[in-house]
């Protein structure tokens, strides 16, 4: 009985606070994305214009984002029947966009960032009561003109 109450309380906490934190994060991501709209990130290996390059630098941004209790539960349920786990899709979307934004913040004054790569890794997925978290690293070469 006590176990069930603890489980429901955790589930509710995860749903309410997790949802709130996610909405706040998405809002801040959207604001910063419009702020950096003039700094293109491209996956090509060549700069947009070959002339006028003053310097270049390796820039990177990383972020670790954790799942919440509610998402864990939803994922467990979906795992039984199969299908899209939307709760996880939004989590990874958040992490990728945040990592790119941090990389852009590091490249202050750059005209573009080229050869951008994204790398995703999960942290401690195999442990019994381990941390369900995803790390995303974005890196590229900032071109200064």
């Amino acid at each position, binding site marked *: 009985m006590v176990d069930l109450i603890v489980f429901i309380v*955790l589930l509710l*906490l*995860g749903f309410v*606070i*997790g949802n709130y*934190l*996610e909405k706040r*994060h998405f809002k801040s991501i959207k604001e910063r994305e419009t702020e950096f709209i003039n700094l293109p990130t491209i996956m090509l*290996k060549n*700069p947009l214009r*070959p002339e006028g*390059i003053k310097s*270049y*630098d*390796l820039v*990177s941004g*990383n*972020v*670790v*984002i*954790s*799942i*919440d*209790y509610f*998402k*864990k539960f939803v994922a467990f349920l979906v795992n039984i029947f199969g299908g899209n786990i939307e709760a996880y899709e939004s*989590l990874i979307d958040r992490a990728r966009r*945040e990592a790119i934004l941090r990389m852009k913040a590091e490249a202050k004054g750059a005209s573009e960032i*080229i*050869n951008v*790569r994204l*790398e995703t*890794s*999960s*942290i*401690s*997925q*195999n*442990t019994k*009561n*381990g*941390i*369900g*978290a995803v*790390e995303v*690293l974005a*890196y*590229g*070469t900032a*071109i200064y003109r």
Partner: protein
Amino acid sequence: MNITNLEYLPNKEIVEHYGVVSGSTVRAKHIGRDLMAGIKNVFGGELKGYTELLSEARDEAIDRMINQAQSMGANAILNVRFSTSSITAGASELYVYGTAVKVQ
């Protein structure tokens, strides 16, 4: 030392190749951080402790790679790539590798 993930350096010519250089670190998180992360696992959100830890570890791996390249006499590292793998529970390996070259 020029470090880039491009396959060339803009406006510069490569005079000599030295082959692959790499650096790696294996980091574990300490219990305090794990506890905090366990609490955060209920609410979701960013694990700032882990973000810092991983970026510090990555900087150290880059330093090791630079030391190796310097001992060879290179002055630039091209085509740098990062990779992360979790070895055991609670520890991850950060590996960075690239090609050491000498440019004019």
